[in-house]
């Protein structure tokens, strides 16, 4: 048991700075070889063996394609990505034991195989919205682990229709993209981010109390200090990761578009920076807070810090958020996600499983081909589509094809 725990721990995310990117040359293979679903969404009972390589699941709308991809993703992050809450993941029409769902996956790794089981059960006291509490039990080879310990056992990157918001949506979605990526690389970052969010929340209330003359300016001191301390760390990390990503993103993008469009990505910090060393960032924060305090009180909200960061994406010299076409935005979003996968692969030395949930439909033929070529090189890529016609013969021949119909899956 100790050996297994050590193994799980060893697979935890590496500290971002300790592993040099070039140090890991060989990528270890990881893929899901068996899935077993019970009462999960529209699957009452499913047993499915799958090989590595490119897998294509085709079928009409509402037959269970996304649900299958979601199940694989659940094994990676222990959270149902589409459901606003995990509760909806349980199939409520099940005849037996309708309050329980299970996703079990067998994952083949270079030297061993692991069995990951996520059990979900409704029960216990309801929350404030009268929805029942969902209890999740996660086991790796039969040993109970917490959701955060599961992260890193199997890496997966999911592409879905919502990704387009990375380009078209508000800066908050791009901050979330950076956060999810950095959290997987650096565990201290998550804590720092959580603390930062609490500090901003408290500080905003205090600013409003000061505006209403119910609190004194002096009470800000502690919150200023805490905001600067965490803010500097977050800014520094985001800057470093965007530096890594920039080249990846622009290379991947020219590969997907056959060098027809040039993509540049820049980190836009929420504090005007005097320089990029820790001390420069620290000084910039302190100065912004000092000079802007009056304005912050008047507005009743913290105005400077990583909660105002953005990522600026430019295609052919134009700001993508305002000028990109839908197909361009889709390509950009795919690029960002592929870059996430590549960075994780470099850092961890393991190729992530790629999950592409109906993202082919908005791409033209050549971009679709480039994308499929790219993902076919990964250890395992699971693609869902409503239309097999969209996929060229050459890919279909080398892929393993499945037909999804009403919660059943057949090989074709």
């Amino acid at each position, binding site marked *: 048991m100790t050996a297994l725990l050590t193994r799980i*721990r060893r697979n935890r995310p590496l500290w971002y700075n300790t592993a040099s990117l070039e140090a890991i040359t060989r990528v270890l293979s990881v893929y899901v070889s068996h899935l077993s679903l019970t009462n999960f969404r529209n699957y009452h009972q499913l047993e499915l063996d799958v090989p590595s390589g490119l897998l294509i699941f085709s079928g009409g709308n509402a037959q269970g394609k996304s649900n299958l991809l979601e199940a694989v993703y659940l094994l990676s992050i222990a959270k149902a990505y589409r459901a606003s809450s995990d509760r909806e993941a349980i199939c409520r029409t099940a005849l037996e034991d309708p309050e329980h769902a299970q996703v079990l996956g067998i994952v083949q790794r270079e030297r061993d195989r692991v069995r990951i089981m996520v059990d979900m059960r409704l029960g216990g*006291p*309801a929350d404030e919205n009268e929805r029942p509490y969902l209890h999740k039990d996660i086991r790796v080879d039969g040993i109970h682990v917490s959701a955060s310990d599961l992260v890193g056992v199997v890496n997966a990157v999911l592409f879905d229709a919502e990704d387009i918001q990375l380009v078209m949506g508000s800066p908050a979605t791009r901050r979330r993209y950076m956060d999810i990526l950095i959290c997987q690389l650096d*565990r*201290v970052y998550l*804590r720092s981010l959580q*603390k930062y969010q*609490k*500090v901003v*929340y*408290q*500080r905003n*209330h*205090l600013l409003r*109390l000061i505006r209403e003359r*119910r*609190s004194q300016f002096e*009470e800000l*001191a*502690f*919150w200023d200090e*805490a905001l600067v301390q965490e803010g500097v760390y977050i800014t520094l990390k985001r800057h470093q990761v965007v530096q890594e990503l920039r080249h990846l993103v622009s290379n991947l993008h020219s590969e997907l578009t056959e060098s027809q469009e040039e993509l540049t990505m820049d980190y836009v910090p929420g504090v005007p920076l005097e320089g990029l060393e820790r001390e420069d960032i620290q000084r910039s924060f302190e100065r912004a807070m000092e000079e802007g305090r009056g304005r912050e009180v008047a507005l009743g909200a913290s105005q400077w810090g990583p909660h105002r960061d953005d990522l600026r994406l430019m295609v052919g010299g134009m700001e993508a958020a305002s000028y990109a076409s839908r197909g361009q935005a889709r390509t950009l979003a795919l690029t960002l996600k592929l870059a996430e996968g590549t960075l994780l692969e470099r850092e961890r030395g393991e190729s992530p499983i790629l999950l592409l949930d109906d993202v082919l439909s908005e791409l033209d033929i050549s971009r679709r081909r480039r994308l499929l070529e790219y993902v076919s090189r990964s250890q395992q890529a699971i693609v869902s589509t409503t239309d097999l016609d969209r996929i060229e013969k050459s890919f279909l021949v080398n892929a393993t094809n499945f037909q999804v119909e009403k919660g059943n899956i057949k090989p074709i």
Partner: protein
Amino acid sequence: MNYEFLPSVAAPLARVIQEFHKLPGIGPKSAQRLAYYLIRMPAEEAQSLAEAILAVKERVTFCNICQNITENSPCYLCSHESRDRSRICVVEEPMDVLSLERTQAYKGLYHVLHGVISPASGIGPENLKIRELLERLKGNDVQEIILATNPSLEGESTAMYVHRLLSPLVSHITRLARGLPVGSDLEYADEVTLSRALEGRQEV
């Protein structure tokens, strides 16, 4: 769920369920269970419970020195001969005094703030028993203030506020150490705790 509007529940029962539901940690199901248990209880036990609840409101007050909960002010600890009067340990809640007393390692006095600074909940320094602490320091020879608020964000902010206020008045202000729990394993400590423990390392 609002039991007052459920005709199938007798009105007095509905009322007692509602009252239990207001208590911390008691959800609707627990409140029901407790209420039905009350009905089967002998009358004298119910009487004794009701009296105990009233007594705790009527007979308990706050110590005018340390602000802890007590039956007589000044409280047992503040009036005890053997306590070291040169030290005051500042805590958030009365329950923290119990925890520290259980250690039997501290012989000084306490001061209960009754909360922490939290702008989001509208609690500023003026809502805490900080003024009372300043009053206490006048004319008393206090050598050391131990800040024993929780290591949470709000606890830290409160500790820092009190520290700034008292530093001209008291020569020695200390903060509880943070680090590894006793009997634990280095392997299982999280990064933040471990780095704090490193920062606070001591000569052996």
